[in-house]
């Protein structure tokens, strides 16, 4: 078993009085793909936002590469090598595709590599190279997701969190993007994949963690857990 690159211990997160994540724990081994599975409203997105520093946890600890990053602001966390592709892509719609990607190399320590990273992203998603001068707002949903993934790659991360990247996309597009994610992972990137679709999650992730009503209720190797157990946990049976 390889070393843990990301470790989340009993994290709690609230919006005002609303408890979105009651208690979540997550272990992500370096170089692997970990799926986080759960129904709508299980707290998956809040957990991802909390790990990435967009949202402050009200309890618990988060470690990345051994460093305590609990409560660190998002703009600092990204410089540590942890990047989030947020739900709904959230491209900068009034900026060109290329400007969107270049924004990914905003952190000072990756600026020198910006050119190489850009080439790599264009290799991964050739369509983005064609549309480099188009406004991100004019792209299709799938292309926007590619921009968001590319932008995250530009920050030169060691671990990427993908928050429901397949949401609202056509099956062929999803297949394509997932193939790219596997490719990125083979090149050494650790991946956390948030999914509502259990089958796809189990197929892609070597490890799986299931969330139910704000809690992580099951975790382990996808194969060992088995589809039935994961589905039971998903529905809280």
């Amino acid at each position, binding site marked *: 078993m390889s070393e843990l690159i990301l470790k989340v211990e009993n994290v709690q997160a609230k919006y005002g009085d609303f408890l979105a994540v009651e208690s979540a724990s997550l272990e992500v081994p370096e170089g692997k793909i970990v799926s986080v599975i759960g129904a709508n409203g299980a707290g998956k997105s809040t957990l991802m936002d909390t790990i990435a520093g967009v949202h402050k946890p009200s309890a618990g600890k988060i470690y990345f590469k051994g460093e305590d990053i609990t409560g660190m602001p998002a*703009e600092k966390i990204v410089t540590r090598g942890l990047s989030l592709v947020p739900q709904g892509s959230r*491209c900068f719609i009034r*900026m060109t595709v290329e*400007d969107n990607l270049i924004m990914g190399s*905003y952190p000072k320590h990756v600026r020198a590599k910006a050119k190489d990273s850009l080439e790599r992203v264009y290799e991964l998603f050739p369509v983005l190279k064609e549309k480099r001068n188009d406004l991100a707002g004019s792209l299709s949903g799938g292309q926007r997701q590619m921009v968001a993934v590319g932008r995250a790659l530009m920050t030169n991360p060691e671990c990427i969190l993908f928050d429901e990247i397949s949401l609202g996309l056509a099956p062929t597009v999803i297949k394509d993007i997932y193939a790219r994610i596997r490719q990125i992972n083979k090149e050494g990137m650790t991946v956390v994949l948030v999914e509502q679709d259990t089958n796809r999650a189990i197929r892609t992730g070597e490890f799986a963690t299931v969330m139910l009503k704000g809690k992580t209720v099951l975790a382990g190797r996808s194969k060992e857990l088995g589809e039935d157990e994961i589905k039971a946990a998903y529905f809280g049976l």
Partner: protein
Amino acid sequence: MQYLINGILLGGIYALLGVGMTMMFGIVKLTNLAHGEFIIMGAFASTMLAQWLGVDPIVTLIITVPLMFLIGVLLQTVLINRVMLQGSEPALLVTFGLSIIIQDALLLLFTADAQRANVAYNTATIPLFGNLYLPVLDLIVFAISLLTILVLTIFLRKTYMGRAIRATSDDTTAATLMGVSVKKTYAIAMGIAMATAAVAGLGVGMRWTFYPSSGGSYLLIAFGVVVIGGMGSIPGTLVAGLVFGLAQVIGGAQYGTLISYILLIIMLAVRPQGLFSK
């Protein structure tokens, strides 16, 4: 025809008046009611420095632009970033308070006397064909305005900081995920807005007599330019500046301002998102 020339030349400085305001509006989502006073601050700074140092007012930009930039950064960091946590209305009222404070402070410092940045080419003109002519002073102010807007546009398009500012205005959360500190970006945006106010102030001081109390009318021009141009849009600001400039010239000294105000009120009621936004 001469109207057209004068209107266009006037439009340049009007666009510059609006540019700082539109940045704050579009990026920081702040209605800065003190922008008019910032411009008058710039006008006083340039006029006084030029007198003391015995140089052309344009030279004073070397001092006023960085100075105003710093004041802007400080103001945003110390005061406005904090108030903005309480919502947009308290922030609006704080800038209102700032405008009053600055106005009265200028009054204390410089009295209510009329001021003007005097230059040698005050009344010089370049004759064109027919009866037409180009007033040198207005032309210079126009050129400075356009140049400032051009530099700002290039900065926003081509530099990391400029992209970060645009990204923040599109989606603050996504921007922080790229390593952008929103508060720092806001501070720099305010600094830039103040720097444009310094240049605009120079233009105001060169073209018109001004008083400590002149801020309000320039704020309203700036706001009009912002509204007609569509907030946050710099090219829109340019066109809107020209529209306003022409309206002013056609209305003449007596009704020009009134026409501008009425134009603005109609715009606010009918198309608050601006002429050029979708």
